[in-house]
């Protein structure tokens, strides 16, 4: 059973994962039995009563019902269904009753990345950090279209809506790093709208909370920029190889350094540090011609050092490509 579980399912990390997998097994084995009845019954009857080469075409039996058999078609499924229902509801109620002592983390979905806001202040992008063994309440909302927040190892999923807060919770038992997916179609970057959940032991978590982000302090600017480029989800819309995606490629921006950028309203500006900074903080103010104004603002999500890092990183691209 354990080997099978390992093969069929992602790791069972949340407290209720095992219960849900067991519900699966119950339905699975009863279904297997029903399927076996249908399949073997069918093969047996088809072969036993097959029309053989030398048979005469003849009138056949008029048997077309059997009350006992027929009532069992209704009663047995009814029993199975009732068990499934009771079990299913028990598991479900378990999944929706959030413990009172849960830590509340606010999750915001936006095309196409996730932001996590922690109760003690501080926020992360595309990386949810939680302590193990403590119930976590996730409060979800969206800034634009629908998304859905899915952590396979927790067996937990909930739609993320723009006009209301949805709630889910889990209690992680095993430390580790696991994937998070967006499972409601949300446009071009839907399949890249991934994140990670990092489950730490509570001690580490507290340390992490205290010095969130500071580990990057001694990285050189351009290296930090390269790291942020993927960590802050710029990668979902901007490539480094010159091919446009949702937004212009960084390589192009870098190569056009000092030249004029034309916007969709016909105006233009020179690409320089200020322009880049403005593009990141107020992307809607100047929209590059040929693109749509879908870039989200990073106001409040990046500090000054991080902005500098991204700009430094962008500038290096041109040099790299010239070699």
């Amino acid at each position, binding site marked *: 059973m354990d080997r099978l579980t390992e093969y069929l399912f992602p790791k069972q990390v949340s407290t209720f994962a095992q219960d849900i997998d067991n519900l699966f097994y119950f339905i699975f084995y009863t279904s297997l039995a*029903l399927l076996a009845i249908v399949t073997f019954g069918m093969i047996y009857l088809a072969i036993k009563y097959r029309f053989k080469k030398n048979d005469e075409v003849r009138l056949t039996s008029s048997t077309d019902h059997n009350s006992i058999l027929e009532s069992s078609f209704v009663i047995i499924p009814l029993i199975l269904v009732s068990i499934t229902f009771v079990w299913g509801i028990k598991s479900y109620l378990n999944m929706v009753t959030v413990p009172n002592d849960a830590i509340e983390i606010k999750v915001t979905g936006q095309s196409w990345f996730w932001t996590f806001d922690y109760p003690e202040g501080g926020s992360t992008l595309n990386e949810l950090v939680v302590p193990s063994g403590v119930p976590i309440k996730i409060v979800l909302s969206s800034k634009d279209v629908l998304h859905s927040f899915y952590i396979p190892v927790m*067996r937990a999923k909930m739609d993320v809506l723009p006009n*209301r807060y949805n709630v889910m919770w889990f209690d992680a038992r095993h430390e580790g790093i696991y994937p998070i997916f967006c499972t409601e179609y949300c446009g071009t970057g839907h399949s*890249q709208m991934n994140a990670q959940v990092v489950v730490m032991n509570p001690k580490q978590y507290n340390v992490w909370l205290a010095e969130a982000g500071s580990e990057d302090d001694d990285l050189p600017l351009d290296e930090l920029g390269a790291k942020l480029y993927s960590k802050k989800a710029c990668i979902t819309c901007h490539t480094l190889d010159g091919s446009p995606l949702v937004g212009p490629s960084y390589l192009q921006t870098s190569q056009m350094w000092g030249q004029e950028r034309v916007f969709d309203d016909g105006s233009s500006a020179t690409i320089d540090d200020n322009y880049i900074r403005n593009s990141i903080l107020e992307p809607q103010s100047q929209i590059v011609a040929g693109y749509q104004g879908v870039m989200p603002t990073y106001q409040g999500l990046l500090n000054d050092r991080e902005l500098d890092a991204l700009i430094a990183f962008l500038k290096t691209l041109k040099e790299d490509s010239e070699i």
Partner: protein
Amino acid sequence: MSDNHHNNYLTYPKGIMSWLLTLDHKRIGLMYLFGGMFFFFLAGVIALGMRLALATPEADFITNDQYNSMYTLHGAIMIFLFIIPAIPGALGNILLPLMLGARDVAFPRLNLFSFYLYSLGAVFVIYTILAGGVDTGWTFYTPYSTSSTTNVIPMTLGIFIIGFSSILTGLNFIATIHKMRIKGLTWYKLPLFVWALYGTSLVQITATPVIAITMVLLILERLLGIGIFDPALGGDPVLFQHFFWFYSHPAVYIMILPAFGIISEIIPVHSRKKIWGYKFIAYSTLSIAFIGFLVWGHHMFTSGQSVFSQIVFSFITYFVGIPTGIKIFSWMLTMYKGQVSFTPPMLYALSFLFLFTIGGLTGIFLGAVALDIHLHDTYFVVAHFHYVMQGGTIIAFLGGLHHWWPKSFGAMYNQTIANICAIGVFVSFNGTFFPQFLLGLRGMPRRYATYAQEYADIHSYSTFWSGILGLSIFIAVVNLLWSLRKNNKLDPGTNPWGALTMEWTHTTSPPHPHNFEEEPVLTHGPYDYDKVLVKPTLKRK
């Protein structure tokens, strides 16, 4: 039988206009058949393209946007242009009046009008493709669909128009079944295919208006920003989901009930045996149609509905399984003490039993709300619905096509090739879609153009088999078409399966333009294989 060309609806009257303006249900049925097959082919080829892109985790030769557009078109065309309108439109039209002993459906002009509405809708959909596609998924969830820059309006307009076509067909069939039966053909003497069409039509006329109005609201939302579904304007996107699924869940029974009907015809004929539990099958059709209206919420288990609704929808969902199970067991038991021949239609029917049972039972997994939270919008759902739609409806449709082909065209295909294709479809279908259950359990989300490395092996395996699947269906269809060549005509009196329903015993193959040369008189029930012996005959002209 006299051999003048007046007694064959295919050759009389002549000329292209006589087809385009025909009021003959059989000809209209054929036009639906070829229209539907065209779109099946188109959406199938798109699917193979998607599978190719999914063979590796990266989006190799297409962009995300192209992939998103492809799966939307694949799903929407399969559903709105092929299985909902074309299967009842084709087989239903060709067979219904023949099975009732009627000269035509109740409203022949309406029938033709309905076909042209379908064509008009199809034009919009084709326009959508040429104009660059649409990327919302076949479910058109707001607010993405109100903000997407792709061609949402032509697509939804097309669906709106096809919805009308579907309503009119349903209305026509209901009136036909009620009022056009010949004397003595009481409800319990109807072939079960007719019962199935009756259930289908009831769902069509009651559910389709809701999707029609929903599409209108969506279009207005895009054009005028009416604010009903758009949260930015105070509207509620979840209301859209309720409206959409209030139609689209019953719509899955529009897709499967005709297939049930086909299976109820094929199995008794090819087992030469009275059908097991006639009344049970007939009533289970109606109860499925009815219960089907009460379960739409099971598509919204993660939308944040109230806990109470979740439980109620989950509860009712299970109950659809019971009448369906009755049918499955009855079909199986029909073979008991019969004479089972392994003809192409029968092979399709047997694979239907196996595949649909898997598809239906996995529906029960999804109906269990606690489990669905893990499985929703993963490949488990994709596998479920391909098992019921392709493994169920399409397989039954292919079986029905092989069963009634000699009737409709007066020609017989190569049965050995057809049998090999039937087995090929069965094996490669399982090869393509069974692995997707595993993908889903392991957490692979659907509608993903790119995905994590860990899913790569299973995906490429699925892709491999999808190629064989496409090939098998293709050869099966070519085999059918090849039988239409000259000098391959059957004697008009041929009844290759020894079937007892009226379309076989009371008219020629292909039938007379007015269906029956004389007013038919009911002589026996549709499944009286214990009383009436008709020997299978297969004579070439």
